[in-house]
């Protein structure tokens, strides 16, 4: 769409405007420098692969009274093949932020490298100012929205969590279009269908979850996801971020029980 809109635009007459462009009466044509990804070779432009190859499935985040927890299993699939089985998809970004990534894993790694570089920059200013989760979430919306607007999206769906300077917990989600929101429970992939209702059902109306409740819910939800989502596996990691500590725990194993299988008859 946007790719051919400008790059195929040869002037309508010499020094004239391009189709859809504005004519500059004083200086003739101005050539705007397009981002390198938009000026690729080919007679009609370039076809780019826009689907994901290696994918991570659900991420689940829960906010509790003094922090957040984000969980994801350790599987990265290649289609229906369980290709990489020991890959952590929940990352500690700095002492205030944890991030869980789902979608195309190459894109996750790419954006993670960008973020890590920002954290190094943050450190060498040595001004005791570090990035907070809300800021990272906002930055991600700009990056992802920019990419979607150039029709070259990063196929990712990320959960950002952490605590701010005042110790107030933050949990939010940013998707491949730059859509962002925050809530006490946030999920991507199949967890949207399977885990979200379970967590919402157990939310007390008058208060936040406690750390214990959040932890129990994560364990329960990862179990449900393992049983019902075919792109999940039993091993998962949990990132926990509070004012006092910020780390990725695990890997844990789902408390699986297949004894009932022996009783199923008829097919």
């Amino acid at each position, binding site marked *: *769409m946007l790719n051919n809109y400008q790059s195929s635009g040869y002037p309508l007459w010499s020094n004239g405007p391009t189709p859809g462009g504005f004519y500059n009466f004083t200086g003739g044509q101005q050539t705007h420098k397009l981002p390198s990804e938009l000026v690729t070779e080919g007679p009609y*432009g370039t076809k780019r692969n*826009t689907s994901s190859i290696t994918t991570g499935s659900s991420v689940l985040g829960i906010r509790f009274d003094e922090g957040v927890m984000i969980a994801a299993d350790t599987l990265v699939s290649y289609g229906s093949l369980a290709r990489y089985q020991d890959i952590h998809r929940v990352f500690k970004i700095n002492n205030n932020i944890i991030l869980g990534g789902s979608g195309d894993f190459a894109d996750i790694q790419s954006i993670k490298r960008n973020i890590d570089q920002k954290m190094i920059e943050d450190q060498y200013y040595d001004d005791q100012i570090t990035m907070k989760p809300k800021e990272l979430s906002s930055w991600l919306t700009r990056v992802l*929205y920019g990419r979607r607007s150039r029709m070259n999206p990063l196929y990712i769906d990320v959960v950002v969590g952490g605590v701010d300077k005042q110790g107030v917990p933050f949990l939010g989600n940013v998707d491949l279009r730059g*859509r962002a929101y925050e809530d006490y429970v946030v999920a991507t992939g199949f967890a949207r*269908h399977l885990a979200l209702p379970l967590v919402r059902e157990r939310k007390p109306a008058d208060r936040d979850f406690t750390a214990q409740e959040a932890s129990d819910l994560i364990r329960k939800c990862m179990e449900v996801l393992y049983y019902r989502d075919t792109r999940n596996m039993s091993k998962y990691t949990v990132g926990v971020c509070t004012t006092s500590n910020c780390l990725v725990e695990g890997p844990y194993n789902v408390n699986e029980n297949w004894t009932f299988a022996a009783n199923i008859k008829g097919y």
Partner: protein
Amino acid sequence: MNKFEQFPDYQVPGVQHHDFSPYESNGGSIVAIAGEDFAVIAADTRLSSGYNIHTRTQNKLFKLSENSVLGSTGCWSDTLSLTGLLKVRMQMYEHTHLKVMSTDALAQMLSITMYNRRFFPYYVSNILAGVDKDGKGVVYSYDPIGHCERATYRAGGTAGPLLQPVLDNQIGYKNQNLSQDELPKLSIDRAVAVAFDTFISAAERDIYTGDSVIINIITKDEIKSQELPLRKD
């Protein structure tokens, strides 16, 4: 050299054909009503796509100045970008002119900002409510590419077509053969009550509207906010 006319009608290798859509409808509805010396604007708090409800507590009203509030629904990522850009431009205006943008100036700027993306529009339904320089209530409504219309009441968003006729009847007194002096004067209380009622009705029939509704009451002195719970299914 490849000219535009040389592009064939059939598919050519190398031409982009996407399965990716940059747009998504995230639902939500807005109702705004202007009175003599006030304006009210209400929006629900459900953020969804398809059958998923992402959050039940998303405020879709953006306070842009002390006397204007923008309600924005549609593609949520576009809403975030558009409101972000508006805030930047309002601040630039404040720094260059040493005054806050008036609601009418803001209405015009919003139109231009939207039309700037004429060929890749912000997929949003905007309604701007506020009080003008004289303290009179105003409502401006927009289409996604920047057409701007001043009105006294307007409904927008996914339940817009459902709500507008209710407002025509209850606020505009359309087709009731009343003469101009018979029309009762609109009070803040009635505007708020009608706005809330329309949302209760919308939540009944539109799956993208519900959870709760936040209403902002704008007068020349202050902006007050109220919330009413709606159906959550």
